C-alpha cells in the first residue's frame, strides 16, 4: 500500500509539470468532471465495459507527448492522424494540444452516440478535427475515408521510401474483437492493404498487458503465439510511451477495473502499454502469402509446446515429409531448421523456412482459408 501511494505521487508530480506547459493553449470543450463519469459513461453493457480509454488529461497528455517522437513528421506540415476508439476523447484533446506542425489533421472514428456527444464539439472548436461516426473496427469506415476524400492530402510514399505523414492511433478494446483487430492490422502490412497502401504508416496502439505480452513475446517464451510471429516479421515495434506514466490502471483509465481472477486476463484493470509499429522495408512475408503464413502458424501453434518434428503432422496429412526438407543435412546450416525446437521456440527465420517448405510441397491443402475441421452445426 505504501509503495503504491509513493508510486502514484511520483507519477503525479511529473504529469503536473507537463500539464502546466500546455494548459494555456487548451480552449477545447471540456469533459465532464471525473466524479460524474460513472453516470455519464455507464458501462453495464459488455461492449462498453471492454472499451478502455485514458481517463485523466494528465495521462492523455503524457501519451500524446511521446507518440510521435520516434516517427516525426517529415515536414513541418505535420501529420494526418487517424484516431480510433477514442471514447469521450481525453486522448483526442491531448492530441489537439499538440501544435499543427505535429498534427495537421485529426480524424476521429467513433460510433458510440454517448461518446460522440463529447467528440463532435471538438470539430467545432478546432478546424483540424473531423469526426466520423463509424467504428474503427469496420473496414467500411476506412473505405468511407477514401470515398469522402478525407485522406486526399496524404501523399502515398513508396514502400522503401520514408514513412508517410499518416499515423494511426488507437485504444484497443479489451475483448476478442480488439485482439482480432490488432492481428488483422499486422496482417495487412505484407499485403499493403488498409492504410498501408499509403506506405509504411506507423501505428500506435494502446493495449492491455495481456495483448501486449502476446504481441511482443519473443521465441521461447510462454506467451509466444501467432500474433507475436506475424508482428515480429512485419514491423519494428517500440514502446510508444513509458508505461509507468500511466500506472496504475485505476488512476488513469476508464472504466474501473473489473473484478478478475488471479493472473493475467483479458478483463480491464491490468497495466496498460503502448506500442508504435513501423513496418519493415523488407518483408519476410511475401505479398499474397499472408493467408498461407497464417495457416501454417495457426496449425502449428495449436501444439505450441510440442517439438516441431512431432507437431508438423498437424499441418496436413502427410506433412511429416516436410521434415526431410527442413532438416536436410546437405543444406547450409542457415537454411535448416532444428526440428527438435518447440513450436514456441521458433524464430522468424525458422518460420520463413517452414513456410518455404510448405509452399513448395505439392500436397499442401488447397483450402487454407478455412482452418476448422468442424462442419457448421445442424
Amino acid at each position, binding site marked *: 500500500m505504501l509503495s503504491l501511494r509513493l508510486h502514484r505521487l511520483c507519477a503525479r508530480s511529473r504529469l503536473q509539470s507537463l500539464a502546466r506547459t500546455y494548459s494555456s493553449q487548451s480552449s477545447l470543450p471540456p469533459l465532464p468532471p471525473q466524479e460524474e463519469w460513472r453516470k455519464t459513461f455507464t458501462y453495464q453493457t459488455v461492449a462498453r465495459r471492454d472499451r478502455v480509454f485514458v481517463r485523466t488529461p494528465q495521462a492523455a497528455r503524457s501519451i500524446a507527448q511521446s507518440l510521435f517522437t520516434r516517427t516525426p513528421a517529415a515536414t513541418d506540415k505535420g501529420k494526418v492522424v487517424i484516431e480510433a476508439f477514442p471514447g469521450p476523447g481525453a486522448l483526442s484533446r491531448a492530441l489537439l494540444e499538440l501544435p499543427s506542425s505535429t498534427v495537421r489533421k485529426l480524424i476521429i472514428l467513433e460510433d458510440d452516440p454517448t461518446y460522440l456527444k463529447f467528440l463532435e464539439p471538438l470539430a467545432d472548436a478546432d478546424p483540424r478535427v473531423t469526426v466520423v461516426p463509424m467504428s474503427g473496427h469496420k473496414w467500411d469506415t476506412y473505405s468511407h475515408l477514401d470515398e469522402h476524400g478525407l485522406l486526399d492530402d496524404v501523399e502515398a510514399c513508396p514502400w522503401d521510401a520514408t514513412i508517410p505523414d499518416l499515423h494511426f492511433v488507437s485504444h484497443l478494446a479489451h475483448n476478442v474483437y480488439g485482439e482480432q483487430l490488432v492481428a488483422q492490422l499486422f496482417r495487412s502490412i505484407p499485403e499493403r492493404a488498409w492504410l498501408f497502401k499509403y506506405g509504411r504508416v506507423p501505428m500506435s496502439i494502446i493495449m492491455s498487458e495481456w495483448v501486449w505480452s502476446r504481441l511482443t513475446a519473443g521465441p521461447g517464451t510462454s506467451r509466444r503465439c501467432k500474433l507475436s510471429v506475424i508482428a515480429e516479421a512485419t514491423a519494428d515495434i517500440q514502446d510508444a510511451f513509458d508505461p509507468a506514466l500511466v500506472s496504475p490502471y485505476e488512476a488513469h483509465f476508464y472504466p474501473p477495473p473489473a473484478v478478475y481472477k488471479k493472473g493475467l486476463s483479458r478483463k480491464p484493470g491490468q497495466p496498460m502499454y503502448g506500442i508504435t509499429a513501423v513496418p519493415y522495408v523488407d518483408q519476410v512475408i511475401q505479398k499474397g502469402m499472408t493467408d498461407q503464413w497464417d495457416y501454417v502458424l495457426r496449425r502449428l501453434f495449436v501444439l505450441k509446446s510440442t517439438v516441431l518434428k512431432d507437431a508438423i503432422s498437424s499441418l496436413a496429412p502427410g506433412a511429416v515429409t516436410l521434415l526431410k526438407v527442413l532438416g536436410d543435412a546437405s543444406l547450409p546450416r542457415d537454411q535448416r531448421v532444428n526440428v527438435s525446437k518447440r513450436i514456441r521456440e521458433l524464430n522468424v527465420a525458422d518460420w520463413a523456412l517452414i513456410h518455404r517448405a510448405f509452399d513448395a510441397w505439392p500436397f499442401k491443402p488447397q483450402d487454407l482459408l*478455412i482452418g476448422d475441421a468442424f462442419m457448421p452445426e445442424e
Partner: protein
Amino acid sequence: MPSPSGSEKRPSSIHADMHGFLNRRSPYTILPTPTPEDVISQPGDIFFTDSPTQDQVSVIEACLRGLHDVPRAKGIFERLRSTRQGDPILEARMYNSFIEAYLEMAHREELNRPNWLEDAWALYNDMERGHEKVDPTPNTYALMLQAWLRYNPDSSRQPVYISGAEVHDPVSLLRNIIGRQISPALVVSDRAFTSNEEATEAIKALSKAAAEMGLASVVNELGLTEFLGKQIEDPLEDVPEVVPVMRPKKIEVVQHDDGRVTQLATDEPLPERAQGEVPFNLETLRRHLSQVVLARRVLSEDVAARQRLLEQSVYSVAVERMKHQAEMMDQLGLPSKGLQSNDLKSWMWEWHQKLQQRIKAEVENLIVEERILARMKRRSTKSEEILLSPFLRMLSPEKLSLITIMEMMNLHGSGGVQDGMKTARALLSVGRAVEAEHKAEICKKNNISIPVPAVNAPRAGVQNIFTGDGYKDLYARRVTAAKYMEDAEEWTSDWSQLIRVKVGSFLLDCIMDVATVSRTIQDPRTGEKFTEEQPAFSHSYEYQRGRKLGVIKFNPAVADRMSKDPIADTLHPRHLPMLVKPKPWLSYNNGGYLYSRSWAMRFKDSREQEIYLRHASEAGRLELVFAGLDVLGSTPWQINRRVFDVVLQVWNSGERFAKIPPAIPDEPEPVRPENMDTDNKAKVVYLERQRQWMQNKAANHSDRCSVNYKVEIARAFLGDTIYLPHNVDFRGRAYPIPPHLSHIGDDLSRGLLIFEEKKPLGTRGLRWLKIHLANLYGYDKASFDERVEYVHKHLEDIFDSADKPLEGRRWWTKADDPWQCLATCMELTSALRSPDPEAYECGLPVHQDGTCNGLQHYAALGGDAQGAAQVNLAAADRPSDVYTYVANMVEKQIEEDIKKDDPIAKLLEGKVSRKVVKQTVMTTVYGVTYVGARDQIERQLKDRGDIPAEMCWSASAYLAKNVLASIGDLFKGAKDIQNWLNLCARLIAKAIPQDRLVQSFTEPEKPNARSRKKEPRWKKEQMTSVVWTTPLGLPIVQPYRAVKRKQVMTSIQTVFISDPTSPSTVNAQKQASAFPPNFIHSLDATHMMLTALECRARGLTFASVHDSYWTHASSIDQMSEIIRDTFIALHSSDVLKGLYDEFRERYADYKIPLVSLRGNAFKKLNLAPEQLGLTSEDTKLLTEGVAEDEEMLDEDALALDEDEDELEALTEVEQEKPKKVVRKRGPRKIKSEADIEARLAGRFINLVDVLPPLPEKGKFDVKAIKESQYFFS
C-alpha cells in the same frame, strides 16, 4: 362414413380397458438420489457402482478368461466380496464363473487339485448360505454336480478328498435344487455340460438321488429330459434321406410357474426301435427345452441363417471380401497392388495385413512388459493396477485389426468433424467395439437359442394387455424368456470408460502407424505428377468454440473414396436392418439384434437412467414399452425397387438431382475481387462468401457419403424382407436402431422403403393415396376434397412422373418430398391403370401427421379452447396452419419496415415463407431462445440461397426478433403449463433428500478436501434430477448435470472423458428449461406407443416417425380412429394431476434451502410467509433478491465432445449463454446480498410445501377431437 366425423354412438376403436389402465396410478420407480462423489458412506452405492469397482470387475473377467491369472482374480474377488457386499455387480453368474474357473484349474493342476476343489465347494457353500444375497442358479448346481461326478470320493475316476469345505453329494444337491424351485431339467441341460456323456451321467446321478428321496415327479421329469434329448428335431432336415423316416411324436410338455417341466403326452407309444437308435444329444435337448420353456416356436434354422451369419461372422466376412477384392486386383494385373491402387477395399486389406502383425507383436511386448511390471510391484497391493494385456488377449489380433479398421471407417464424418472424428469418441468407440465383439463371442460360444416373437398380436398372449391379467401374462412370458437367456449366457463384465479408452488408444496407435496410402497429385501449373506415401489417418487439435479438441482426420485420398466406393461392407450389422424379426425385448439390455448387445433405451451418458430402467424392467413395469417396441420392430419392410432404380440412375450420373448432391460440387466458386489485396472490406465480403462456398462443398461431400451409405444398403437388401429393431431415447420416443437407412431418415430413405405386405386399396384407400400424394407435394393446407381434386388435376403429371421419371417433365422433383412423391406417383399410376383400381394391392405407407403435435398436447393438457382451434383439435372445415399464420404476421411487419426504408426488410420482402418460420414456431413451444431461433432462421435463409451469405446473420437476427414477437400471446394456454413445469423442475433441481441433508451436517469435513471454496455444504448435495413416470410406466430421468471430465493420457493424445458412473451436482438451469419439452415428448411417445399397440391388436401394419403415423392406405380410416381414441384416452386420465401427485410422492422427503428460492423465477410462487414459517421481512428479502443465483455453468465447459444424439438437435432446448449478472447499484447491493445469505442460511423447507398448484384447466373437452378431420392428417 368411416372418417372421424362419423356417428356419435360408434364403439370405441380401442380396448375399453385402456382408459382404466391409463387412469390407474402408474407404479413409480423410486430410487435414492445419487450422492456426491466425496461422500464416503454411500447408501446409494448399491445402485451406483463406481468406476474403480467396475474396473476391478473387468480385471477379474480378463483374468478368468482362458484361466489367464485365476489367483489374481480370486484375490480381487475376495476383496470385493468383503468391501462391496450387496452391490448388484456381484451377481450369481460372476460367482459361477469363479466356480467354473476353480474346477478348470483343478482339472489342469493335478498337484493343487484339492485346494482348487476346496475353493469351489467353499464358494458354493457361501452362495447357499445366502449371506451375500447371491443365489445359486441352475448353472451353479450343474457345476457342482460335475465336480462331484468327477472327483467324489467314491468315484472310480479321480477321487479327491477334501477336508476344508463341505462337499455335497447328488442327494444333497438335489435337495437344494428342489428347495430353490429350480427345474432339474434345466440343471442337466446347462451349458456346464459339454459332452453328452457327462450330461447323461448327471441325469443318472440325479435320477438316482431322486429315487432315493422318493421324488417320483423328479424322476419323471429327468426321464422326460433324457427322452427329449433323443428326439429327432426336424425330420426333414436332420434325417438323411436314405434312412427310413422316423415319425416324431407329438410331444406336449408343460412348464409350471416354478420352472418345472413335467408332463409329456404322446398320442401313440413310441416304437422301441427308434428310441434305441437315436443317441442322446445335448444340443437337441437344449433346443427342445428352449422351445418348451419359452412356450413359443423357435426360429427355424434356415430363416435365421442369414441374420445369424451376418451378425456372427461380420469380421470374417469382411476380411473375405477385402481379400477377394485384393486378389481380383492382382489377377486383373491392375497397376501394382495394394496401396498403389485407389480402392478403399484394397487399402483396407493392406492395412489389415500390416495391422494384425503389428498388434500381435505389440501385444506380445506388452505382456512381457506387464509381467516385469507386475513382478516389481508385487509387494505393493495398494491398488489393483489395470493391466491392458488381458483385455487385448480376449480377441485374436486378426479380429482386433478388423474391428479397428472398420470402426475407423464407420466414424468418418462423425461428431461434426469434416472427414474425420473426435479423438475421444474414436478411442471409446474402438474400445467399445472390442468389448462388444468379445461379448458376442461368448454369446456365440454358448449357442443360445434365440426366441422370436410370435406371428401376430403383441407377444404370444392373445389377451387384452390393458387388463390386469393380460399385463401379468405379458410379464410372466417375458421374465421366463429373459431368465432362460440369462442363465444360458456366461457371465461377462461391463468395461469402464477407462479400459475402453486404453484399449482403443492401444489399437488406434497401431493403426495410425501402419495404415498408409499412396497419394498422387498433379501440379495444376506444370502438369508434373507427384506421388507420396502418406498416413491414412492423422491426428491434430482443432479449436471449437474456443476449446481445443483432439481430432483424427482422414487423408484426403481416403476421404475422397468414402463418397464413391461401395462402403456397405464396412458396416457392422448393428448398423444394418435385420433379416429376421428382431429379438423381442426380454429386458432393458436384451433385445433387437441377435448377438450384438443393444439397450432398450439410448442413455445420455447417464448411469442414473440405466439404473432406473433396469429397476423398472425388473419390477415388470415396462411390459407395454417392450411390447410397443416389439410391434415397431416387427413391421416388415422392403426396398422399393422401382424407386431404387431411379435413385441408382441418378446416383451413377453424378448429377445434382432432387436432393441428391452432385458428385462434383456444381456451385461456382466466388470470384476474387480485383481490389481484394488492398481493400480489406472487399476481402471480408469475399472471405465470407468463400467460407460459405467451402462449407457447402464440405456439406456436399458429407451428403454424398451419406447417400452412398443409403444406396449401398438398399442395394444389399434388394428383394429381402427387412426389419428395423427399435429402442427409445430417454424421453421414451422410439427410433430405429440402424442409423443409415430407416424410415425415420430423410425423404430419400423414406422413398426407398415400402411395406412388405400389400393390401387392396378399397374406395377409401384410393382416396387416401391421393391425399397422401397432395400432402407430399406440399399441397397440404387445403381440405381433403380439395387435395383429391388437386391430384385429379395433375393426373397427367403424375402418370408422366411414374412412366418417365427422368426423361419426362419431372413434375415430381418439385415436390416438397420428391422421392416419396415419386413412389406415390408410381403406386397411384399402377392402381389407376389396373382393371380394378380399388382392388389394387398397395404396400405404400400413407402418413397421418399431427399438426404441431407439441401444441396439441399442451392444448389438451390445459383444456385450452383457443389453442385447440389453432392446432386442429377442434373440428373445422379447413385445416388451420399456425406456421402460415405467423409467416403472414411477419410479412406484414416487414411491409411496415420497408416504409421506414429498412434495408434488411427490403432484402427479405416476399422471402419469409412458412418454411422459414416453421421450426422456430414449432420449437417456441419447447422453449426456444432468441439465440436458438436466430440460428434456426439463419439456416433456413442460407438454404434458400437468395440472400447474400454475408447478410444472412443480420437478416436472421431481424427475423428472429419479429417471429418471436409475432408468436406473442398466440400460445397463451401453453405458456401457463410451460411455466408450471419449469417452476416445478426448478424447485426439484434445488432439492436435497432429507437423509442426505442430515448426514451432510453430521459428517466431518474431509480434511484434505480443497477448501478454497467457502460455499455451504448443501450446494454439493444438490443432486436431485427431475424424474417422472409416463402413463406406460417408463421412468424418465433428466440427465443434465455439471460436466466433469477426467483427463486420460493416451499414447495418441490426451483426451477428456466423462465418467457416467460418478454423478455430479445437477445443472438446475438445464433441468428446468428442458423439462417442458421433455415432458411433452414423453407424452407424444406414450401416444405413439398406445397407437402402435392398438394398431397391432387390430391387425394393422404400423410405423411411426414421432408424431407421424404410418399404415396402409386402406387402413388409414381405422388408424385415424385409433389415433383419436388413444389421444382421448391419454388425456382423459388427467395427466398433469398425475404428474403433480407423483412429484408429491417421489419428492416427499426432499428439502430446499431457503436461500436458493431467491430471485425472479420464484416470485411466481407467491409464497406466503406463514407457509414457510418466515417473517414477512424474510419473505420480502427472498422475493426482492437480485437476479437469481443460479450456479451457472461455464457454457464452454458443456461443449466438450458431447456425445450428442443428432436426432435430439431439433427439439432439445438450447441453453442461453449465461447472462452476466449486472450489479445495478454498486457495492451497497452486495452487502445486502450477504445479509440475505446470512439470514436465510441453514434454513430449509419441504419441497412439496412449495410446489405450485396446477394451472387451471380450460373448458375444451378433448373428446371433441373425434369430430376433427384435420387433427392428424
